[in-house]
Every structure is written in structure tokens, then in C-alpha cells.
């Protein structure tokens, strides 16, 4: 028997179960302790595991990431939280210069089995720097894995898989859907394997690749088109490493593709998927690949954010362009 949990409750449940399972796992970050995290993702953990395993740190992202790297190299399994992904940049040097490279530089003598969690994405009417989707930065960096769950069940299972992974994982949580819906989540620890996409809706006319908070409006657009166009929706879940097999086999079936992401279009992960389709399945292609994405502009403040984010109508228009080509 499981529990009906929201995505953020499932994150908390995953942290809790894995901390109970493995004494080496610890949580650290700004306001994660007594306050339980600004989104309540660590609620109750401070009381259950104490201040040495649920650590309120000084306000210093480079310090958080850098010290977690040291802990991970020394055998612990830290799960630092950066309060919003827009505040990861003071820690960016540590992420790309060391977290991603420790294994390579030391030829395996030192490794970095840590998970860096951060809420990301728009749609919550937040101030500046609280809404961006910069997953491409991390996908671009060899040595990092990048995981983005879109359901409560996946959030818990993927987080536990990430904690158990021998390599560092950037775990981006779509905060727009932190509390959008509930789902049955099993009790106790379980893994949802990283690197495996999930087909959320089967279809034969066009493949739409997406992830995170865009999964639901994409499925909604697909349902709106049902009976007219048969849309397959693939939730990639892990952006690094990409599940190339699922992407290519879906495209071989439909011959048409659209990609939906919140991040700006230029050099977004959609570009990598498009290039992969060209390389691996060109002879199956019947139309240009359509990218329905955020625009190449800084993420706007609340008054205009609905115009920035893809929603079902825009997604449907984009899918139709490739279907009607």
C-alpha cells in the first residue's frame, strides 16, 4: 500500500526513506532544516534525523556545492538543495570544474556520488531568477547526469536512483507541478531507473518529446487533437544520458516529431534531440522537426509569463505544423 502524494511530498518521502535506509545520506542547504525548505521538500526531516544530517548552511551556494563535493569524495552521500535553480550560478564553478570532473581527473581514485536538487521552471508568478529552465547548461557538461521527474511516483523513484548512482546527478524539480496533482506512491524505497524515457501516450502520427512541467500540457494538447491527429507523447525524464533508443524508435514509427520545452529555443535540449533524429533516422523523416519552446529572451516577470510558457494551444499549433507539412 502506498500513499497519495504530490510531487513535492514524494521528493520528501524519497529523501526520508533513503536517509532511513542509508546512514551516509544527508541533506544540506539554505533553510532546509528547521524551516523544512521553502517548498517544504525537507519538512520533518530535521526533527527525525537531527542537525548533523539535515543541515542549515550559511547562505553560500559555492560553499554548499563545494563542501558537498568534499563530503561525497570522502564517502558520504550528500543531497544538497539549491533553493531555486536560478541561484545555482555561484556554485556553477564547483559544478562544472569539480563535481563533473572528479572521477575523470583522478582516473577513478575520487568520485562524486552526490545529488544536487533544485526547484526549476516557471509558472508560479515568482520574482526574477525564480523561474528559469537552464537544464541545457548541465546536459552540456560531461560527467553529470540530469534528471527531471514529471510525476510523484517518478520523483521518489528517480531521486532514490540518483542518490544510489555512483555519479553526480543534477535533479531538477518542476515547481509548477509540485502540488498540481496527487498520485499513488509506494511506501519504502524503490528505484525508477535513470536514463529511461516513458511513453505517456501512444500514437502513430507524430512523436512529441518533452519533460518536466511541460508533460501535462503536451498530453492535454494531444488529447485535444485525438480523433484528428494521433499524437505520441514521450516524457524523457532523464536528459543526460538521453534515452536515444526510445526517441529514435518512436520517430521511426511516426516519421514526424515536435519537441516541447520551457527553456529558450536556441541551443536548448530540443536542438540535441533534433540532431539525433537527423543522425539516426533521417530516412524515416517526413517533415521538419518543430520546436515549441520558450523564446530566446530572459524569463519575464509574472505579468507576461503566461505568454512565455508553452501551453496546450501553442503546443497544438506547433504539432499541427509538422503534421500538416
Amino acid at each position: 500500500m502506498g500513499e497519495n502524494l504530490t510531487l513535492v511530498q514524494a521528493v520528501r518521502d524519497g529523501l526520508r526513506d533513503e536517509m532511513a535506509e542509508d546512514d551516509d545520506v544527508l541533506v544540506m542547504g539554505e533553510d532546509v532544516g528547521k524551516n523544512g525548505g521553502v517548498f517544504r521538500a525537507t519538512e520533518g526531516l530535521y526533527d527525525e534525523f537531527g542537525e548533523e544530517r539535515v543541515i542549515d548552511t550559511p547562505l553560500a551556494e559555492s560553499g554548499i556545492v563545494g563542501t558537498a563535493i568534499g563530503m561525497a569524495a570522502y564517502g558520504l552521500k550528500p543531497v544538497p538543495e539549491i533553493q531555486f535553480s536560478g541561484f545555482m550560478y555561484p556554485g556553477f564553478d564547483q559544478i562544472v570544474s569539480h563535481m563533473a570532473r572528479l572521477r575523470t581527473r583522478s582516473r577513478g581514485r575520487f568520485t562524486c556520488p552526490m545529488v544536487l536538487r533544485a526547484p526549476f521552471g516557471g509558472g508560479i508568478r515568482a520574482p526574477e531568477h525564480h523561474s528559469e529552465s537552464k537544464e541545457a547548461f548541465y546536459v552540456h557538461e560531461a560527467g553529470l547526469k540530469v534528471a527531471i521527474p514529471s510525476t510523484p511516483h517518478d520523483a521518489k523513484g528517480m531521486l532514490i536512483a540518483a542518490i544510489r548512482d555512483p555519479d553526480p546527478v543534477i535533479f531538477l524539480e518542476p515547481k509548477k507541478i509540485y502540488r498540481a496533482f496527487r498520485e499513488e506512491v509506494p511506501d519504502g524505497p524503490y528505484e525508477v531507473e535513470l536514463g529511461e524515457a516513458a511513453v505517456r501516450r501512444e500514437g502513430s502520427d507524430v512523436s512529441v518529446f518533452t519533460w518536466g512541467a511541460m508533460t501535462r500540457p503536451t498530453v492535454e494538447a494531444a488529447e485535444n487533437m485525438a480523433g484528428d491527429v494521433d499524437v505520441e507523447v514521450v516524457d524523457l525524464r532523464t536528459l543526460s544520458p538521453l534515452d536515444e533508443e526510445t526517441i529514435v524508435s518512436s520517430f521511426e514509427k511516426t516519421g514526424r516529431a515536435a519537441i516541447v520545452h520551457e527553456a529558450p529555443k536556441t541551443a536548448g535540449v530540443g536542438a540535441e534531440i533534433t540532431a539525433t533524429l537527423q543522425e539516426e533516422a533521417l530516412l524515416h523523416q517526413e517533415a521538419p522537426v518543430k520546436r515549441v519552446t520558450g523564446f530566446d529572451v530572459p524569463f519575464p516577470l509574472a505579468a507576461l509569463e503566461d505568454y512565455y510558457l508553452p501551453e496546450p494551444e501553442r503546443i497544438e499549433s506547433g504539432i499541427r505544423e509538422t503534421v500538416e507539412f
Partner: protein
Amino acid sequence: MTASVHREPDDMVRVLDEDGEVVDGAEVPDLDDGELVEMYRTMKLARRFDERAVSLQRQGRIGTYPPLSGQEGAQVGSAMALGGDDWMVPSYREHAASLVQGLPLKQTLRLWMGDENGARVPEDVNLFTVAVPIASQIPHATGLAWASKLTDEQDKAFLCYFGDGATSEGDFHEGLNFAGVFDTPNVFFCNNNQWAISVPREKQTASKTLAQKAEAYGFEGVQVDGMDPLAVYAVTKAAVEKAKDPAEGELRPTMIEAVQYRFGAHTTADDPSVYREEEEVQKWKAKDPIPRLEKFLLRTDRLDEADVADIEADIEDRVADAIAAAEETPRPDPVEMFQNVYAEMPGRLEKQLEWFQSIRAEHGDEALLED
């Protein structure tokens, strides 16, 4: 007044005690009666603005908002110490200081309503942009001041605000270190309000004070009672003067640690009762800067009860007018999203704008906007 800067880092400067009496040996700064009343009026205005803004957020009429109640003395006292050519570099909570510097309240409201135009500082106002990432504005303040020095200006000081949590960030260290090395005309003003969201000051640093950190950069640090607007004014004024005209062998920068308390939440998104005791809040409320200054002004006959009532009526109107003006301003044209990204819009972005306009035409704005 330069003498007030020359203190031990943990020797807190005070002028008024909690009852608004001048403390022994302190000197009331050289402000005329009109300026003192204006200081009081602006602090009251900021408090009332803050109360209304929190209430507007609760009603869904503005977005997330960072309250300043309790910090009016530090903001108004320091901002009034700036001269007409001096610059202010804020973080994101300096609504009162920015008002003194010349940013209309309507704009502060528009910003927190999610309209970038709220952050568009009027052309003739020496106020830098809002900076949300903690401490990130500190190196900018050093750079602005450095540029002023490199272009042979002698008459400008650059006042930078940040909080206690910011002193843990690398940007704090780098900004202050550059200021010391290049002897820039900066005043680094730390609003130590005791709490970085839920993390108390003593968990940010093992240092006895924040002011003492300045010593390591080679310049002076001073602690001031941040809920005593006259002390804040005096210390800031001295630091501003020193930045422009240091004594022989003295470095220009100063770090001021204004010891104070935020009465409310970090922002409207958090609940302080989860992480701090009400008893502590009440202890600090006894130091409230507004009644302190009011008692002083009443006792010294710079103000009477009728003036207080007039001021209250006046600020009520000013806040109401600002709210009305902000709410009457329409949602920005979504095309603005594509503008001001570059001086000239690149062709690829123009194509995206064209596609966006076709989507608007096809579906209508109502379909694109969430409820």
C-alpha cells in the same frame, strides 16, 4: 563627524535610546527641524506602504513581496545621508531607501506585481537596478565607484545595501576586497536584520560581529544601532564624506553593520513562526525606530500631536494614490518581452516574435493566459 566611524567594530553607535532620549555623550546630527520631520514622515510612509503591500499580496493583488517593517530607520536614515550626486545600489528590500533616492512607490508596486517597468529607474535618479541573487550587487557597487574614481570624479560616494546572509557569499568577499585594494569610494551598508529567511545571524558566521569583517579588507567597519535613524544617519554621513575625502593614510571604503530586525517574514512566501519565537519578535519591537524618533521629536517640540495626525492622513493618501496608480496601469504589451534583450533585435528573435504574434492571432490572448 568622521570621528563616529573611528570606533572598535563591536562598539555600537547610538544616538537615541529606546525611549527616544539622547544617550549620554551622543550628538544629535546636524539636520534642521524640517529634515528631521521629513525623516519621520518618510519612515511612517514606508511602514504604512509596507502594511498595505503585505495586505495586497494576501488579496492576490500583487505577487510575492519582501516586507521591510522594522528596518525603516536604517533605510531612511542612511538614504538621507547621501548627497544629490551620490549613488545607491540596492538589493531588493530597499523600498524606503529607494523612495528617498527618488523611485516612486508606484514603481515598487509595479515591480512586485510582476511588471519589469517597475524596475525602470527614472533617468535623473542615481539608483542602480534591483538585484535579487544575494550579494551579487556588491561587486557592481565596487565597480561603479571604481569607474567614478578612474574617471577622476572626486565628489561621489556609492552606497550599497545587502543583508546579514549576504556576508556569507563569495561576492561579498570579492567586492569588499576589490574596494580595499583599489580604494574605491564605497559605503557598504549591511542591514543585519538577524535572519536570512530561517537561518539566524549566528549560523551565518562564527565572527563576533559582521562589521569586523571590514578589518580584514583593510578598511573600517562600524556597528550602528540600525533601529536608531539618527545614529544611522550620522554614521552613514561620516562614511560618505570619508569616501569622497579621506584623511591622509585613510582608505575610502567603510562597512556599516546596521543591527536591526525584520518584524515580518523574509517575503510573503514564508512563515516566521516556524523558525523563530514570538518572544524574540516582541523584544525587538520595543526598539521600533518610528516611536523612538516620534518621542524625540515630540519632546523637543519639533512635532506636536496635531502634526502627527496630519502626517498620518497625508501618508494614507500617498500610499492609496500609489496603489491606485499601480493598479490602473495595464498589463505590459507582451511584445515588450522581446524588446530590450539586445540594442537591436536579432533576426532569429524577430522570427520568434512573428510566430508568437501568429499564435496570439490564432488563439486570442484569453486562451494563452492562465486564470
